[in-house]
């Protein structure tokens, strides 16, 4: 597989997506809400207080980890917007056939589309996480006496779980996009992928699933397995003969 070919396809998709205001704004709004909105909420609730009890402080730290989980939910939902558009957009423009006739392999095309769908959400979420950590540190440094972020939990979320969840979203989108002709339908179906992540968030809030590094690594392993299964399904879906003769 030649990465250069995949990058040419990704660049083309990115330059098309850049012109779509609805997709562009989706990439901005969600990370902005989580990275700025949630710290503001924390500030309103606890930041203005002169000092809080140790119990309240440990509760706050659990809440902070749970809030960080929002970034995983974002990673599982944002790529759907781009992946659905770039694949169904090609179906609607009937541009896959000439693309498949070029000296590129199916996996290079799939990789290119995956890069285009992954890159903007990942960059947006990572920037959002940096802002989130900076703001939270600024708000609770007074009570805590040290910088809470960066920490190991956030590192696992940022570097392992966010990319894995984003890959899940892309692969689900590829599989769905092969079967539907409408971008909105594909996005709606694809967004269902956040449900399991939202359930884990609820479990985290109730401390039934503690957001500690070992638990998060187990979760990462499970998502990795799911991604491998979905990847093999996506690859078998994204074959030129399938695309030209079976995709509707």
């Amino acid at each position, binding site marked *: 597989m030649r990465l250069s*070919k995949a990058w*040419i*396809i990704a660049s*083309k998709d990115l*330059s*098309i997506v850049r*012109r779509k205001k609805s997709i562009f704004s989706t990439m901005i709004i969600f990370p902005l809400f989580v990275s700025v909105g949630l710290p503001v909420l924390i500030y309103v609730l606890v930041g203005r207080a002169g000092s809080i009890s140790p119990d309240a402080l440990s509760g706050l730290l659990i809440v902070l980890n749970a809030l960080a989980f929002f970034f995983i939910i974002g990673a599982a939902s944002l790529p759907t917007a781009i992946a659905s558009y770039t694949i169904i957009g090609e179906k609607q*423009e*009937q*541009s*896959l*056939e*000439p*693309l*498949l*006739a*070029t*000296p*590129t*392999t199916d996996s290079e095309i799939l990789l290119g589309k995956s890069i285009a769908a992954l890159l903007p959400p990942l960059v947006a979420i990572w920037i959002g996480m940096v802002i989130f950590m900076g703001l939270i540190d600024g708000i609770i440094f007074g009570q805590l006496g040290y910088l809470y972020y960066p920490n190991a939990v956030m590192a696992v979320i940022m570097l392992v779980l966010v990319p894995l969840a984003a890959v899940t979203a892309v692969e689900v989108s590829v599989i769905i996009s092969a079967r539907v002709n409408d971008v909105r339908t594909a996005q709606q179906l694809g967004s269902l992928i956040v449900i399991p992540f939202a359930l884990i968030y609820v479990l985290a809030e109730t401390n039934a699933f503690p957001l500690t590094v070992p638990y998060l690594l187990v979760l990462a392993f499970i998502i990795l397995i799911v991604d491998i299964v979905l990847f093999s399904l996506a690859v078998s879906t994204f074959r*030129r*003969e399938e695309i*030209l*003769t079976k995709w509707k």
Partner: protein
Amino acid sequence: MIDAVNLTKKFGDITAVDGLTFHVSEGEAFGFLGPNGAGKTTTVRMLCCLIAKTRGEARIAGYDTGNEADSLEIRRMIGFMPENVGLYGELSAYRNLDFYAKLYDRTDQQRKESIERLLRLLGLWDKKDLPVGTFSKGMKQKVAIARALVHDPEILFLDEPTANLDPEAAKTVRDFILELKKEKKTIFLNTHNLDEAQKLCDRIGILKTHLLRTGTPEELKEALRGSKTIIQLEEVNDRIVAAVRQHTSGKVVVEDHRLVIDVINAEYENPGLVGAVFAAGGRIQFVQGLNPTLEDVYLETVREEIP
């Protein structure tokens, strides 16, 4: 350059293409003529390594379309224009072409020169920065042709290049294909337009799931036995028609003041027919020989296939 032997494609129980065997030489313009659903697009897709054959063999410049490694080489040396232009409407004409040129590993300089040359040739250079989505059908078709040529391919596959175009746009596209013929590109053309096939192709294959006839337009017309003789009269009456019918076993049709007679050997039969009309009192205004057109050949060939 292009060789197919017993090339067959089935979709489930349906045979789309059945046992095609043909050869296209380097620099030749070969056309597939056939009705909708005849298997033209399926054949081109197999030759362009887009779909796999069920049976048989197809080679492009010696490379096997069924071999994964060869298929990349084949796709590198061919230009393909599908029936649906499939351009990126949001991108400019230049950006569309540049994207494809990059996929063929063209250098910056090669891309720039090639895109400018093609867009100037097709009269689109002034519009190079406009989104293709704002173009007319004819303009889009031109960009699609430019896309197929942007890497200077040795072989060009054109699937219905003038379908859905207005006559003026279709003529521009045909003229451009004629220019490509002068450059000695090997051209494989799918069409159901007889006039287009006759004008553009050195040889034609009439396809309806399997290959019914192949030859130059002239050979195909010669293969259709016989021609027609038209005798224009001042007046046609039953006596004249009966006299002519006595003289020929071919079909005789009366159209206003003329007789249209099927003949096998016009030079041999016409003197007798004229004599019969004259003897029956017919006053002949003129006699005209009518050779079969490609349309006659096509219709007869395709009709023969109807069970």
